[in-house]
């Protein structure tokens, strides 16, 4: 069954939206989403790696022997993660410090390897780009949604971008008298919040 380019792109946005439908790559989803900014940043970094590793895997798919393919995919992905690390150190250093260990951890993000194995190794380059973009943007949106929910309730803020001198975003969304629900920005809140969002997705999807 051949799918069109748009279908491959849009399936990542709802049908196969990464953290919810596939339940893969949960570590960054839970770990970095204390603010909306972290969520978006992590999502974009993952999208970058996903798209470029998909391109390379798809273009090399006839050359890589199937026995050592996983090792090859991991090296391809690791290369792009190193590029991302260096780029972020140069252009978004504060964000790089905040995301910390989770940037090198994109290497072991199951979504990226999963797409390389399940999609890019079997499809053409253009389809793989569409697939990578779709899944990546879906992932970014989910991270941003979870991040903004946690930041809103847990810290009463909503940041989009932080530079060393200023913060772009809304401070004290619910006014200065709102008592932040600190549980949300801490570790247990991440699990509970994601669990309830998954429940909501199931509710919406079943109709």
């Amino acid at each position, binding site marked *: 069954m051949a799918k069109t380019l748009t279908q491959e792109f849009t399936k990542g946005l709802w049908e196969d939206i990464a953290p919810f439908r596939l339940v893969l790559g949960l570590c960054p989803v839970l770990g970095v989403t204390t603010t909306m900014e972290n969520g978006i940043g992590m999502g974009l970094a993952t999208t970058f790696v996903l798209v470029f590793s998909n391109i390379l895997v798809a273009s090399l798919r006839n050359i890589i022997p199937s026995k050592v393919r996983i090792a090859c995919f991991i090296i391809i992905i690791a290369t792009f993660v190193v590029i991302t690390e260096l780029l972020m150190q140069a252009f978004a250093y504060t964000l790089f410090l905040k995301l910390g*260990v989770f940037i090198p951890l994109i290497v072991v993000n199951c979504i990226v390897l999963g797409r390389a194995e399940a999609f890019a190794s079997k499809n053409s380059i253009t389809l793989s780009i569409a697939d990578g973009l779709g899944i990546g943007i879906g992932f970014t949106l989910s991270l941003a949604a979870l991040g903004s929910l946690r930041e809103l309730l847990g810290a009463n803020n909503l940041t989009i971008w932080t530079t060393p001198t200023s913060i772009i975003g809304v401070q004290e969304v619910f006014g200065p008298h709102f008592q932040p629900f600190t549980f949300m920005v801490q570790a247990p809140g991440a*699990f*509970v919040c994601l669990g309830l969002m998954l429940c909501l997705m199931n*509710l919406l999807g079943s109709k």
Partner: protein
Amino acid sequence: MGYMEIIIGGIFVNNILLAQFLGNCPFLGTSKKMETAVGMAMAVVFVLVLAGVITWVLYAFFLAPYKLVYMRTIAFILVIASLVQFVEMFLKKSIPALYAGLGIFLPLITTNCAVFGACILNIDKELNFMKTLVQSTAYAVGFGLALILFAGVRERIILSRVPKPLQDTSIGLVTAGILSLTFYAFKGMI
């Protein structure tokens, strides 16, 4: 930082699963049955301790002196991948029952963030060799403890009636949140 502090910190306070969010895919994937959870925990303990030590040696004697620090992501993942391959061959030959029980999750240790993340964290903290060994063991034990505790709770959940949209992963995550809350209580210890 004393050894006692590292041990308690690694197992309880900074538990790798519930406080640092590393290795959550196998955490949710293998915790439905106690048997697989125990197997997974053992495999991770073995691989994590070995990987922690080997990556430290690699970093201290090769990457750092030759100024190849930026290559660490690639170097570490290669070491871990070959280590997992070795463990897989070892288990297949000597404990076939466990090998069959672990199934897909053994090769998945390669992409287990807990192993890779722990190695990176050890390097970032600039620990010496002995402390790296102790820290890796503590992380691994913490991983096993959390996974087995969680599997125990999850086996009970199967017996109870969960609302339909909350079933499976969703209730699993909420349960993990409550488990994480109990580990959170250790925060004051250090």
